[in-house]
């Protein structure tokens, strides 16, 4: 294995010339360069921090140690969700000491110069990375979106590495920063599926779940998605594939910027494997995300994982306008970022939802912290990622369905299915 070579300037940082915080950050970046097999470090234009969500004191120990040592980020840095909604802290149902730890952790990242964006969908903020730009993004769904949909370049970074890279402005020159690792390897062909199925919104998280399970570390190329697939659907697919597998990038031929053709997506190499996706496989994937029989009483409906976009708020508003329910029988939560929330309200997308008692959660998410009442046992979602993690994280059984099914179920207070597309 070739050893990491540092420039004189980088070595000086490692030896403490830029302070103890930068030296600690550089030590970790260099150790990870060794793990990745990198021979050099490369500059980044921006960073996104996943480590601001509170799971225990190790996270506080690390962040507060950096703050004590005087750490400051050296590139524009956005923040992922925390464990509490700072604008609506009363929504948190867990123990007060957890809320206090969550707040301290978020404060530590602000003290280091991170922006208070608190969103897992930084690609929905106004400024986002340009095509070909190198960044350090943590948060699995943001990583796969940045690489695949934006054509920006980030490797699969974890908590702690994100802030270290933001402090020194450098990452190992390895993984998805390099051309040779961005070539597609395994083809998922969906051209055999009916148009109606490919037009269904629940198809995208279901397909992402299937791809995550079957990619086995190879970079997926999807062939046969309709040309009009929007970013919301690509987001849902991406998030789901990163939850069920370690997918950090995919190509969708004709849709994503590095895949104008299958040949381009494969980078001129032959495909290693091809999977012909059948309707039965997609249906099984949807059911694996969570099925409860129609009529099952629901304690909550949760959408917005990853964080709801402006266009998704418009879609929700359109479904509510179409169904025009007098009231919702189940508590209904939408998670989003504070910027999108304010903008959605300004555009008038929230009036109907708020009148019906929909709870908008910002800065955090309903599946990774205690927002639902403790006795909630059954919930419905349109998110493959929420469906995947909520049972382990917050102890609920999940029904997975489309946005429209989620609204219909909330109106009825129990699971409602529209099987037409899937039968």
């Amino acid at each position, binding site marked *: *294995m070739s050893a990491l070579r540092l420039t004189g300037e980088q070595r000086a940082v490692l030896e403490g010339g830029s302070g103890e915080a930068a030296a*600690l950050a550089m*030590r*970790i970046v260099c*150790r*990870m360069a*060794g*793990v*990745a*097999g990198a021979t050099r470090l490369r500059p980044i234009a921006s960073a996104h921090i*996943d*480590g601001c*969500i509170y*799971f*225990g*004191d*190790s*996270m506080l*120990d*690390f962040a507060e*140690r950096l703050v004590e040592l005087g750490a400051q980020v050296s590139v524009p840095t956005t923040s992922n969700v925390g464990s509490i909604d700072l604008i609506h802290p009363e929504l948190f149902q867990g123990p007060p000491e957890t809320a206090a730890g969550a707040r301290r952790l978020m404060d530590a990242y602000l003290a280091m110069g991170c922006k208070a964006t608190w969103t897992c969908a930084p690609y929905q903020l106004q400024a986002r990375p340009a095509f070909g730009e190198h960044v350090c993004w*943590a*948060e*699995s769904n943001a*990583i796969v979106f940045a690489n695949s949909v934006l054509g920006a370049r980030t*490797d*699969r*970074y*974890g*908590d*702690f*590495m*994100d802030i270290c890279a933001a402090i020194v402005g450098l990452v190992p020159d390895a*993984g998805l920063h390099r051309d040779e690792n961005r070539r597609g390897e395994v083809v998922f062909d969906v051209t055999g599926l009916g148009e109606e199925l490919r037009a269904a919104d629940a198809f995208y998280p279901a397909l992402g779940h299937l791809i995550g399970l079957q990619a*086995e*570390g190879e970079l997926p190329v999807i062939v046969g998605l309709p040309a009009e697939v929007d970013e919301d659907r690509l987001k849902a697919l991406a998030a789901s594939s*990163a*939850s*069920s*597998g*370690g997918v950090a990038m995919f190509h969708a031929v004709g849709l994503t910027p590095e895949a104008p053709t299958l040949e381009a997506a494969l980078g001129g190499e032959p495909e290693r494997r091809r999977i012909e996706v059948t309707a039965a496989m997609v249906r099984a994937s949807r059911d*694996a995300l969570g099925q409860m029989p129609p009529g099952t009483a629901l304690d909550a409906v949760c959408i917005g994982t990853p964080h709801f976009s402006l266009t998704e708020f418009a879609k929700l508003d359109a479904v509510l306008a179409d169904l025009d329910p007098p009231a919702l029988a189940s508590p209904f939560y939408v998670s989003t970022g504070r910027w999108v929330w304010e903008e959605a309200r300004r555009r008038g997308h929230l009036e109907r939802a708020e009148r019906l008692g929909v709870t908008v959660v910002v800065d955090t998410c309903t599946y*990774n912290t205690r927002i639902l009442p403790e006795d909630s046992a059954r919930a419905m979602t349109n998110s493959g990622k929420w469906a*995947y*993690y909520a*049972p*382990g*994280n917050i102890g609920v059984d999940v029904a997975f369905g489309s946005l429209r099914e989620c609204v219909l179920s909330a109106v009825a207070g129990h699971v409602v299915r529209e099987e037409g597309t899937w039968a």
Partner: protein
Amino acid sequence: MTIDVRPLTPGTATGAPLRLDESLSFWGGFDATTGAIIDVHHPQRGETLTGRVLLMPAGRGSSSGSALLAEALRLGTAPAAIVLGRVDEIIALGAVVGEELYGVGCPVVSVEGELPSVGGFSAAVVRSDPDAGRGELELREG
């Protein structure tokens, strides 16, 4: 039986081997307070990882996996060592930070291929020295 492995984070550790049939995301899949697998989709849900030499095909899922491993190292619930089928930076990072903060490491190594079967072996030893580029996994019977 001893096989050469790629060393990712340093240390030497011994424990009863546990081979996972499917990859696990530490975040969302592992409870750092109890050391148990909590991923409802995982076939070995309920198994305890504490003190084990954990063999698994790959990392998976959330970026917060590193935080969960560091937290488990803080609480003393972490695996003794981790043997991966392929390199996973997020897992290695958790071990690096655990060492940096608490001086408690967890050697992480990669076999770059099929994981060995651990049936019939009661103990596993992982020796990992990334600076020297040397790593090995020894499986012992009885």
